[in-house]
């Protein structure tokens, strides 16, 4: 057992102590934990406030997620605090297995180490500003929240590549989310609009030197989930992303080697108890530095577990 597992276990053990003894959110209505730690779908935030706490209560959740694609793998874990269905504070740590990046040494003398991992920390804050996604079943007014995700990435020996691309190692995303449960149809809809400079969610840094894009852009993200039972939901997500690096790569004679695509997934979420949820997904993360991965789309399995109180 390594220190990461220990930290996670400690977090899980503390969560019930941190939360109130009795929290009263309806099962699955707090969403699951996204890879950045905030409550939502798997790859996009929702306007719901995490944990099982509802009005006048505070609660906590912790999660771990593993996604494995053809050439990469991502482990993410973290925790969130929810208060009064109003404010959510979240932390997450990501570990991205970028071993494939050693091939970049064939392009230039970047000095990328074999088996290099990229690590990123995400601090999230979300505030519900209006609406009730679940109970206001007689109106179309959604629940609306605004949030931020402050990200710091540590690329290790890939720092030389970040420098070459002109990518920063920290930045903050801002977003607004609207979530609505169409209760009589058992259908949950979410739309998020994000202002971001992140390349691959920040794992490849933020922004790019000219002629790539160094500035923010607005990116939409969509989720739809269908409740099959009290404890079971299936759904799909689509998250648009900027393509900041491609032009920089093209100018360096690398063609479309740095192209970035949208992320999408199909998921099934199951809550065997009120405090545990498991999410299994098939994720397609599009091309991630296709120049070193034979142009393959990075699709694969995604598994996440969350405890919430």
């Amino acid at each position, binding site marked *: 057992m390594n220190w990461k597992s220990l930290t996670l276990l400690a977090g899980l053990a503390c969560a019930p102590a941190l939360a109130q003894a009795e929290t009263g959110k309806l099962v699955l209505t707090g969403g699951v934990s996204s890879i950045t730690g905030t409550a939502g779908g798997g790859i996009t935030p929702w306007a719901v406030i995490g944990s099982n706490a*509802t009005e006048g209560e505070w609660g906590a959740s912790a999660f771990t997620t593993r996604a494995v694609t053809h050439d990469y793998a991502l482990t993410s874990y973290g925790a969130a605090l929810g208060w009064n269905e109003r404010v959510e504070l979240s932390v997450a740590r990501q570990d991205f297995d970028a071993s494939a990046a050693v091939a970049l040494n064939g392009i230039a003398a970047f000095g990328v180490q074999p088996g290099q991992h990229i690590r990123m920390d995400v601090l999230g804050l979300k505030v519900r500003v209006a609406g009730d996604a679940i109970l206001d*079943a007689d109106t179309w007014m959604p629940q609306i929240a605004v949030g931020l995700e402050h990200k710091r990435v540590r690329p290790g020996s890939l720092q030389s590549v970040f420098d070459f691309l002109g990518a920063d190692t920290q930045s903050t995303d801002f977003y607004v989310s609207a979530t609505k449960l169409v209760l*009589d149809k058992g259908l949950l809809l979410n739309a998020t609009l994000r202002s971001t400079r992140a390349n691959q969610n920040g794992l490849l840094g933020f922004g790019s030197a000219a002629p790539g894009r160094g500035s923010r852009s607005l990116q939409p993200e969509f989720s739809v989930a269908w409740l099959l039972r009290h404890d079971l939901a299936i759904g799909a997500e689509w998250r648009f992303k900027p393509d900041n690096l491609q032009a920089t790569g093209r100018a360096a004679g690398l063609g479309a080697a740095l192209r970035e695509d949208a992320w999408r997934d199909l998921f099934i979420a199951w809550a065997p108890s009120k405090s545990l949820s498991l999410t299994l997904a098939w994720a397609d993360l599009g091309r991630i530095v296709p120049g070193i991965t034979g142009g393959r789309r990075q699709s694969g399995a995604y598994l996440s577990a969350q405890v919430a109180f």
Partner: protein
Amino acid sequence: MKIFSLCFALILAGANLAHAQTAAAPAAAPAGLYAALGEKAGIDRLADDFVERLLRHPRIGPQFKDTKPAAFKESLAEQFCALSGGPCSYQGADMREVHADLDINKGDFNALVEVLQRAMDAQGIPFFQQNRLLALLAPMHRDVITVH
């Protein structure tokens, strides 16, 4: 005989349509929900079981200590029947007045929703139909929740 059946069906359909149009104004009951709940007999069984479960509930059971179970069951059954499009009119008290003197927070309200879900499960009401009834009841949180 066939022509007679067809005419009869058309007249019925016309009557239904006219009825639907007049009833649509405030809150049209979802088609088929009353039947899906087992009509009046099924709704009576549901209300009966729901109230029994509420009284036993550790969190919200004590809220009902001054409630007369028989009258509560009858009032709930009337309300569910009327909401689901059955031949009942809800004569019970105004939801806001009834809850005004109680301390009911959102967690209590959600607990009540979960008890109702379990009662509907026990009656074999399909999940999809449960959600149609819940969609009619959930907006009452504005009148029922007194502590924010």
